[in-house]
């Protein structure tokens, strides 16, 4: 029986508390599992699905090695080979690496931070379903023989519809964008959860280092993914509607794609590395039996690494013909990025040196990481030197380099993490008879496969060729490399068998098998849906606790929220820096809405893939409607004021505070959106300054009065949202203001739509017109989403979700419309400035 809010929480037994919490946090059996939103379930699904795509991507890699094992092999023809290597890279990077990172983050982060779930459980579930559906689309395309075939980076003009007329490239553009959007939503959630949902008392200096790594990684995702999403949208628009963003004959530039791709692509490899570095920073102190050395230095290093990784993308483009001066600063940046990495490496080595290392299976993989990652890092510094890169570019030397860094930075730490945390996931320990031979087979096979690629690359073997001549001198190196690949594959197969054996036959694990000092071990294993029976109060660094002493106390309900009430799934929100508890967060329960929304999104993507644009538009409206529907199940119908949360403390629910998680989430979502907008503005200016065939033959013309009306309407809408908020805060109902704001937004949309219809030069004739269409389209999209906000406001106001204390909805709407007005002014202003920009071009000598 739940405690009502009027009663003081009564102490119950640990078993009784467990039963109540299990009932409140339960996901039902059978088909009801499809409605799961719990982070433990979703995190496990992410990891399991990622492993499936790892297997498929790995098999594709082996097929490529079979083809290259001997010269002039006929195992595959060139078209098949192109699809195989493209899908190998695309699957492993987009469908394995990032989702695996996110799966580990989803599963582990709440546990390590001492909270019960992530901030937005339904969004977590939606992210998973989008990932699964996007992955299925790509996999089905592979089976059907229409997989992407232009390399995992889809360079233009090869990926344009002139040179890739089939749907191969569209599968990549739409499928990858689908997956990346889900990754972006999870990134926003990770940021909000790390900042606002830690255990009480867990200030930033007490947070486990894994929390810092995930926070920095998620912030990187928020800035790195939007340029790729924009580039994919622009390229798909070019392919579908003929807008020449990348077509140099009509004022576009193929290099714009490379810039947009690698501004994402280079930070992406650090996005993959940093969480694994967080895993290493967590495991190494445990196996060294000593606290992590250099906690503060590591925080500085990862902040530096995050920023510098965004400033060196051109090292993937050293051979495109940019001036020496530009080459120089990207080369210098690419060299110095090794410094923060080295700081972390030395911190780990110092930790091992300070302690008494225990050698067991996870440590074997840490050793594997150290050796492979250092080799990969050193070849990276070699490639950072421009003259060397000019020799090695597009050869197998580069292939060797990135497999060493990705294998070192991801594969080895991941396998170590798997063995380390598998007792937590499964409640069983490994048998280990297979684990050690499996490691050595992987280690020896990996080095045999990829080390020889350095040599064959320096001997001149290019990338992405399906065969080679026997006289080139590459025969034995390729054959041994392929043999190494098979040895490695046997090793991975043994790991799979070992894991299955552990799950089925392993010994029951005790609570803290490694004698670790982090919070995820202070709970039952396998974990329950509610993670912690009561939330701990942290008064020391959270990687120096004693899980064995803490766990029984938490199980007895002696922490915060050691009770249930109203069938609510409750956790606590804290101050960003100090970790002082400041709000009671009530999380949404199981629902099928994320699944329906993801399926609808998938249908919209498929409709675009098969060029049924009317259907795509209709499904997009369905998705929008479903998101509005989500809002009808969140929040409270009344003000509660402060509610008891245990240990003598009372806190208001999150619906009645200023610093609620949705507020933080929208701010970071706008950082992502702003990055996409900045990338668009960069693209426009880049084409203006660098693209051939500028200026266009036709002078650009824009309807000035209509442009000003559009901008004015956007600002009036923003003012209307502010008036709605003031009205509601004053205790009056804001329906009239909401309605007025909606009308003004509709007028803005109409005005911009007229502007779009009258763009000169025509968007298909020249990139100037195409970029104007993109800028206007951005404004229309955001104003349209503003209408959705207002519709949701109206519905939730009518349903009773708002009050003078419960103002989150209207604050979110005000923020969105402010952003729309500011970016709208910039976008429309840039289009209005295009005649002047074109005129300036005439001043070029």
């Amino acid at each position, binding site marked *: 029986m739940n405690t009502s809010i009027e009663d003081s929480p009564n102490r119950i037994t640990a078993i009784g508390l467990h039963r109540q919490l299990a009932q409140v946090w339960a996901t039902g059996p059978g088909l009801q599992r499809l409605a799961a939103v719990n982070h433990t379930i979703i995190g496990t699904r992410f990891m399991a699905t990622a492993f499936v795509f790892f297997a498929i991507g790995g098999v594709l890699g082996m097929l490529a090695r079979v083809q290259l094992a001997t010269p002039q092999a006929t195992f595959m023809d060139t078209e098949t080979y192109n699809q195989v290597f493209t899908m190998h890279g695309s699957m492993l990077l987009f469908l394995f690496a990032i989702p695996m990172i996110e799966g580990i983050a989803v599963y582990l982060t709440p546990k390590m931070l001492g909270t019960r779930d992530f901030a937005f459980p339904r969004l977590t579930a939606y992210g998973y379903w989008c990932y699964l559906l996007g992955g299925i689309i790509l996999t089905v395309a592979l089976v059907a023989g229409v997989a992407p075939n232009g390399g995992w980076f889809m360079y233009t003009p090869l990926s344009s519809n002139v040179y890739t007329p089939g749907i191969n490239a569209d599968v990549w553009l739409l499928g990858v964008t689908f997956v990346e959007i889900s990754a972006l939503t999870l990134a926003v959630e990770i940021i909000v959860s790390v900042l606002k949902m830690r255990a009480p008392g867990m200030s930033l200096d007490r947070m486990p280092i894994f929390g810092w790594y995930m926070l920095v990684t998620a912030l990187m995702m928020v800035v790195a993914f939007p340029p790729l999403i924009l580039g994919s949208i622009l390229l798909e628009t070019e392919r579908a509607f003929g807008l020449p963003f990348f077509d140099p004959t009509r004022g576009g530039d193929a290099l714009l794609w490379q810039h947009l791709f690698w501004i994402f692509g280079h930070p992406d490899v650090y996005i993959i590395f940093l969480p694994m570095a967080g895993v290493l920073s967590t495991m190494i102190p445990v196996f060294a039996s000593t606290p992590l050395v250099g906690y503060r230095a590591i925080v500085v290093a990862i902040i530096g690494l995050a920023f510098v990784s965004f400033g060196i993308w051109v090292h993937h483009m050293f051979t495109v013909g940019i001036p*020496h001066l530009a080459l120089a600063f990207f080369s210098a940046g690419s060299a110095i990025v090794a410094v923060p990495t080295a700081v972390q490496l030395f911190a780990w080595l110092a930790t091992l040196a300070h302690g008494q290392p225990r050698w067991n299976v996870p440590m074997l993989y840490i050793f594997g990481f150290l050796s492979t990652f250092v080799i990969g890092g050193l070849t990276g510094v070699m490639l950072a030197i421009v003259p060397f890169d000019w020799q090695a570019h597009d050869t197998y030397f580069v292939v060797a380099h990135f497999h060493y860094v990705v294998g070192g930075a991801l594969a080895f730490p991941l396998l170590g993490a798997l063995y380390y945390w598998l007792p937590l996931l499964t409640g069983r320990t490994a048998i280990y008879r297979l684990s050690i031979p499996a490691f050595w087979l992987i280690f020896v096979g990996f080095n045999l496969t990829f080390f020889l690629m350095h040599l064959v690359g320096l001997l001149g073997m290019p990338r992405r060729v399906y065969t080679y001549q026997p006289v080139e001198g590459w025969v034995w190196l390729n054959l041994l490399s392929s043999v190494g690949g098979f040895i490695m594959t046997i090793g991975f197969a043994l790991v799979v068998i070992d894991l299955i054996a552990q799950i089925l036959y392993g010994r029951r694990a005790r609570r803290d098998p490694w004698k670790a000092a982090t919070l995820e071990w202070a709970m039952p294993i396998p974990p329950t849906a509610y993670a912690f029976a009561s939330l701990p109060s942290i008064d020391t660094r959270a990687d120096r606790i004693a899980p064995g002493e803490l766990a029984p106390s938490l199980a007895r309900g002696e922490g915060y929220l050691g009770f249930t009430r109203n069938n609510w799934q409750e956790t606590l929100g804290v101050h960003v820096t100090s970790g002082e508890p400041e709000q009671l967060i009530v999380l949404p329960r199981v629902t099928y809405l994320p699944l329906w929304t993801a399926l609808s999104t998938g249908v919209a993507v498929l409709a675009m893939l098969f060029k049924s644009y009317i259907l795509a538009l209709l499904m997009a409206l369905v998705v929008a409607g479903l998101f509005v529907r989500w809002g009808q199940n969140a929040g409270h119908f009344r003000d509660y004021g402060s509610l008891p949360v245990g240990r003598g403390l009372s806190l208001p629910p999150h619906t009645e505070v200023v610093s609620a998680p949705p507020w933080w989430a929208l701010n970071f979502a706008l950082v992502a959106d702003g990055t996409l907008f900045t990338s668009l503005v960069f693209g426009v200016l880049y084409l203006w300054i660098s693209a051939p065939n500028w200026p266009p033959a036709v002078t650009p013309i824009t309807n000035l009065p209509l442009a000003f009306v559009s901008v004015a309407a956007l600002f009036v809408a923003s003012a209307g949202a502010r008036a709605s908020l003031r009205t509601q805060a004053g205790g009056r109902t804001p329906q009239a203001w909401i309605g007025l704001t909606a009308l003004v937004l509709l007028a803005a949309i109409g005005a911009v739509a007229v502007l779009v219809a009258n763009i000169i030069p025509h968007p298909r004739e020249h990139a100037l017109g195409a970029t104007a269409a993109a800028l206007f389209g951005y404004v229309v999209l955001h104003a349209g989403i503003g209408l959705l906000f207002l519709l949701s406001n109206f519905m939730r106001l009518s349903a009773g979700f708002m009050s003078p204390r419960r103002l989150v909805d209207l604050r979110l709407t005000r923020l969105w419309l402010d952003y729309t007005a500011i970016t709208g002014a910039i976008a429309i202003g840039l289009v209005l400035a295009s005649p002047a920009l074109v005129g300036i071009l005439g001043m070029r000598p």
Partner: protein
Amino acid sequence: MSVRPVPAHRLWLLVLGFGAWCSALVTVYVLHSLGCTFAWSAHTIRLNLGLAILVHLGLIGWIGQSYAKPPADAALGPTGSFLHWVIVWTLLAAVATIVFTLGPTLLLTSCT
């Protein structure tokens, strides 16, 4: 003395140093592109790039002087001390990064 929570807006100081580095990189890249497109002289390009670098170093210096040079406020407790240390060292690292990555480029030929 009771400990006050570190205000959330102080976290901006963690990113301002390297944010200035990003801004310097973008500014240098843009000025260089504009200079080469509109055929500025090599001297003009180098002067503009040098000024851009100095402005950003000055910005970091001002941030350091204002926020990082004074010792950590004891009233903000261990969290304040931790953040102060991290802020100082990220600012120093950002200065070193600007000098290392952008300084030597001024010695190179401009547009070829």
